[in-house]
């Protein structure tokens, strides 16, 4: 059942992604001001949006774990955060490359970049603390606690380019203001979808591994206690 779901997701992702990549690289014209480099937007932004989606899922499942104490929620949280952190890293790296190309520097300390880096560091902290706790219930509870605290940064990331009195180096919103050219919208949306499908498959795999690992650990302990 789970395996089937993973395969279906992977196939769907391929079906969405391959034609979309073709459109992005072959179909769309170069942008007027930036040239070819603007195509980074088709990975830069979907990565960020999906990271935010998965972090939101992890927020919900973390709360659920604290209430229900069911390890299923914990394993979903950690898988979402692992994948989400990877996506944030993709966003940071692509953003840096883009910035290097556009502004001549890899990094500027504006609110958007800083808050996104902070997001990366917070969830990195989560991933660091987790393996340091041996006892599973405690590990899951503490992880949930950290995940909830860390999530407080997400609204900041979203607001960073929308606050009235804050100037950012980073470009302002283009999606809701409609400044995005119409022919970019479909490939952009499909890009978001493709990343979402791939990452959901990854999360399912990781979630399964996490559960299996916990079972293996306990079996080994049981063996030792004989």
């Amino acid at each position, binding site marked *: 059942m789970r395996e089937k779901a993973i395969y279906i997701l992977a196939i769907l992702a391929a079906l969405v992604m391959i034609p979309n990549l073709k459109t992005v690289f072959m179909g769309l014209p170069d942008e007027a001001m930036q040239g070819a480099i603007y195509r980074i937007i088709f990975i830069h932004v979907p990565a960020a949006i999906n990271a935010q989606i998965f972090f939101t899922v992890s927020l919900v499942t973390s709360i659920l774990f604290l209430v229900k*104490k069911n*390890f299923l929620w914990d394993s979903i949280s950690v898988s979402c955060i692992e994948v989400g952190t990877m996506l944030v890293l993709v966003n940071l790296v692509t953003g840096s490359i883009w910035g290097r190309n556009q502004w001549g520097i890899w990094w500027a300390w504006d609110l958007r970049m800083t808050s996104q880096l902070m997001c990366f560091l917070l969830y990195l902290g989560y991933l660091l603390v987790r393996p340091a706790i041996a*006892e*599973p*219930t405690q590990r899951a509870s503490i992880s949930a606690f950290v995940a909830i605290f860390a999530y407080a940064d997400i609204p900041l990331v979203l607001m960073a380019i929308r606050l009235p009195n804050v100037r950012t180096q980073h470009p302002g919103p283009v999606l809701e203001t409609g400044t995005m050219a119409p022919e970019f919208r479909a490939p952009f949306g499909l890009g978001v979808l493709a990343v979402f499908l791939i990452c959901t498959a990854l999360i399912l795999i990781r979630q399964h591994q996490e559960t299996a690992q*916990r*079972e293996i*650990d*306990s*079996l080994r*302990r*049981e063996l030792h*206690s004989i």
Partner: protein
Amino acid sequence: MLAVEADRVWKYFGDYPALRGASLQVPQGACMALLGRNGAGKTTMLRILANLSRATKGDVKIFGDGSRSDIVRRKTGYLGHGIGVYDDLSALENLMLFGRLLGVDNPEKAAMEALERVGLERVKDGMAREFSRGMRQRLAVARAFIHQPELLLLDEPFTSLDDRAINVLQSLLKDALSRGSTIVMSTHQIREAMELATNVALLERGKIVHTGPQTPEMLADPGWLYRTYGDGPVAE
């Protein structure tokens, strides 16, 4: 009424069940010795009874109350492996602090009384840090007794104590029993425990395999219980 009523309690550490449906009833006024091999789950059980840890499944009622209200918590005293007093506070300050936390009416008076009971009133202003091991253990006992708890949970209270300290502890516990308190204690030192125990429970791999009153056989031969109800001492 039952002082402690644990009904099929499970505790998982991850997927490893340290307790697998252990049920325990301790009548009020009894002294229950909780016996079992290393890793059987004694500490886990006591921590659950003391509300330091939550059972994964199963119900625990203390004095008929399953909700762990603070009224119940005020009636329990817990003494674990650590002595649970602050090294940098004096004996009196320690007891007054815990008296206050436990909602004792007149913390200072209660603290002085507790110190007298364990024979530490002479050194009430000495820092716990400077106490010898025996004195520290007495202070810990005073701490666990300060609110005159109706239920005492003790995890291996005799470990590393010399004969004299064991005598002091035993007489304190007898006092408490005679005042109507209930005691649950885990131990490997069966002889010392049997001086007090009215009931015994044997834990094995997370299950209670025997409960019953203390019998003369147990007193005479500490291994008897394991051999009769447990799987016996096998050479590995």
